[in-house]
């Protein structure tokens, strides 16, 4: 059956069951109550500390078929996820559903455990590298289940994801289980995704290389949610966790795109006193910040708050008084980590606070503008950030569709051409963010405004910017590098892309190569 954006989705998908089809960005009404962990008790003077990860696996009673979760704040420096799965495999436990907030290339090491049947299902934001290619070939019992950060938070709260055990890497943990992400060698800043898992998992194991006396300060995840503590030598490699400082790109094409995007924001009317904004961490989207900053200073305006995926350059704007507050679900570089540690107006937030569509209002709903990147876009303004030009999984959904839905102005920045490939096409391979939530596509050769946004079209008509229709943009791309052949795919569904509301917006079929 075709869903509301014309994607052919089967009514029933093996391993997933009956499909609720996407019917529009705000069409689905959730019902029921939030799920929660078991009631538990911890008697006074009980010692939560266990000798090893192996002992913890026994203590939580991990069994075949259970779901375990991890957070991805350590990015490519993560030493927890691979280590825990290795220990589970050694115990002969099988048929595990892995539910990390995202996967990084460091997790390519999990491939053998999928082949051995230790892991048979994965629910996450996306995958890259060898793991992405491997998952595109199938191999799991269920299709890879891709959720946005907000969608994952909603699924955890509704019980669609039931986490039996959350294994949380803790940069700082006290002897009774209070955790923060800002102290220690493996400091990663915000623990936004872990906060979500800790609150809803049946059992929580904190794994730390920095055990501190009780009580810890500040506390991000409270002792009331942490059942066990394991101390190990190292939970992460600082070099992989965060880069020194993400710098503005020097690539002239990205700078040109960024400059255009800032101008679009300027003329849109949303760049005004007390506006709010989210920037992606990609080259062009981050560089927009630089141009926005100049405009803010020229016009003498200040913003209300920023949202991230936080980088140092954004945090710096707050320190310079250009924004009042920052809401941070994930800190991308060392200056951002330092900032959340020292600035009381740099707030840590949970994934639910960030982007969950099924609570009483996530912060994305308050956003004036968001700048997002894209792998490819199509003439319906749909955006793909998950599969590459061969149909192979190589990216992550992240907060893309959440912020696009929430913000009043969603600007997608992307090069019109990557090498010899057009990035504006008739139809994207995989839809992650529906075009109805995207307002402008900004490329180095032209800017297209969603025809639904008559107000924006009007505001931008005398801007002098290269505004054109999305079809003209596609024609320029096709004119320069030709229309790409469609990717041949089999009927086998290797991945499903869930929209933030839990409906299926698209599926990933195995390419025939």
């Amino acid at each position, binding site marked *: 059956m075709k869903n509301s954006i014309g994607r052919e989705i089967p009514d029933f998908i093996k391993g997933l069951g009956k499909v609720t089809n996407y019917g529009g960005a705000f069409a689905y009404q959730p019902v029921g109550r939030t799920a929660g962990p078991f009631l538990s008790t911890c008697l006074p003077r009980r010692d939560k500390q266990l000798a090893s990860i192996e002992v913890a696996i026994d203590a939580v009673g991990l069994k075949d078929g259970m779901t375990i979760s991890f957070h991805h704040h350590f990015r490519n420096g993560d030493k927890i996820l691979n280590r825990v799965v290795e220990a589970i495999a050694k115990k002969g436990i099988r048929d595990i559903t892995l539910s990390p907030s995202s996967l990084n290339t460091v997790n390519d090491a999990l491939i053998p455990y999928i082949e051995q049947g230790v892991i048979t299902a994965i629910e996450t934001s996306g995958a890259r590298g060898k793991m992405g290619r491997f998952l595109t070939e199938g191999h799991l019992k269920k299709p890879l289940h891709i959720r946005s950060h907000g969608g994952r938070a909603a699924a955890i709260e509704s019980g669609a994801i039931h986490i039996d055990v959350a294994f949380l890497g803790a940069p700082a943990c006290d002897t009774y289980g209070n955790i923060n992400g800002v102290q220690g060698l493996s400091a990663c800043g915000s623990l936004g995704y872990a906060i979500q898992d800790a609150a809803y998992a049946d059992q929580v194991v904190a794994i730390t290389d920095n055990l501190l006396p009780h009580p810890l300060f500040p506390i991000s995840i409270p002792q009331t949610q942490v059942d066990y503590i394991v101390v190990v030598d190292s939970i992460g490699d600082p070099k992989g966790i965060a880069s020194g400082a993400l710098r503005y790109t020097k690539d*002239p094409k990205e700078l040109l795109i960024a400059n255009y995007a800032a101008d679009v924001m300027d003329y849109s009317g949303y760049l005004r006193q007390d506006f709010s904004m989210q920037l992606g961490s990609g080259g062009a989207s981050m560089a927009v910040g630089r141009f926005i900053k100049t405009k803010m200073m020229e016009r003498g305006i200040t913003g209300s708050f920023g949202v991230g995926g936080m980088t140092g350059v954004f945090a710096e704007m707050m320190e310079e008084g250009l924004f009042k507050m920052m809401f941070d679900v994930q800190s991308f570089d060392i200056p951002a980590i330092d900032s959340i540690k020292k600035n009381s107006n740099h707030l840590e937030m949970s994934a639910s606070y960030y982007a969950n569509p099924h609570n009483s209002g996530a912060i994305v709903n308050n956003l004036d503008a968001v700048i997002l990147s894209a792998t490819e876009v199509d003439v319906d303004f749909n955006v793909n950030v998950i599969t590459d030009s061969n149909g192979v999984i190589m990216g992550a959904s992240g907060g893309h569709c959440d912020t696009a839905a929430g913000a009043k102005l969603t600007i997608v920045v992307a090069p019109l051409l990557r090498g010899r490939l057009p990035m504006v096409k008739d139809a994207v391979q995989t839809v992650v963010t529906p075009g109805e939530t995207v307002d402008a596509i900004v490329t*180095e050769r032209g800017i297209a405004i969603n025809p639904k946004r008559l107000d924006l079209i009007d505001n931008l008509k005398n801007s002098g910017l290269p505004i054109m229709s999305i079809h003209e943009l596609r024609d320029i791309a096709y004119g320069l590098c030709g229309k790409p052949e469609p990717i041949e795919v089999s009927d086998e569904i290797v991945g499903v892309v869930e929209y933030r509301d839990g409906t299926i917006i698209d599926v990933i079929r195995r390419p025939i190569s």
Partner: protein
Amino acid sequence: MDKLRRSMMFIPGNNPGMLQNAGLYGADTIILDCEDAVAITEKDSARNLVFEAISGMNYGTEVAVRINHISTPFGWDDLKRLLPAKPDLIRLPMCQGPDEIRQIDDFISEAEHKNNFTPGSIKMMAAVETPKGLRLAYEIASASPRMVAMAIGAEDFTANLKTTRSKLGRELFVARGQLVLAAREAGVQCIDTVFSNINDEEGLRAELELVKEMGFDGKSVVNPRQVTVVHDVFAPTNKEIDYAENVLAAYQDALEKKSGVISLNGKMIDLPIVARAERVLAYAKATATKGGKK
């Protein structure tokens, strides 16, 4: 108003990605380079790529080709291959005298005839990079009606002077001055050398202020990020525009009153000042600066 050539941006002729994007950055002229940016082993492929780029891309701006010098084994081959694609402008490096210009002019005339191009439609410019070239700069600049500009290539020039480049540019002061004189006498534009430290915006700005003051029309650039800085400095300031407007108003007023002496705020205005004011306003219009620099 002459065609603006504030920024003439070099693009390596053997880099498809850069060729593809060359037209995006607003440079007044893009120079597709077959010479220094291209290794000897890459000369053929660069020539072919540049041919395809000129024929296939719609750059929407003036497209020049820097050919190899005609005394090298590549110069004439560059012209033979590339003229049928009809570049707007041929830039000759390391020019040593007017004969070279005349030889190339003849060759271009033949190609224009063969390809049914309007005679004289392909323009030329030359860069002097030696003391001899500089001594003959006027002769070079006036050797052909195709000539539209002269440029100076500072790296080779300073090497030939047995000195080095410096931040203040004193080593180039005489040469720059002499080139401006020759170009103005011949009625062609005068383009300054590249500023190669692409991360030093302040240094670029200082050098631009200097060459603008000396009378240069533009600058060769090596990175798109330099284009906006160049345009910014070459744009007339609001103060210059206001003054020019006042001068012209006073001039008009004097004409209407048939008054022999024109004065503005107590200062006498003579015809060169009027001419300069007209040039500033024409330039401001051409650069569409929306009121000039802030």
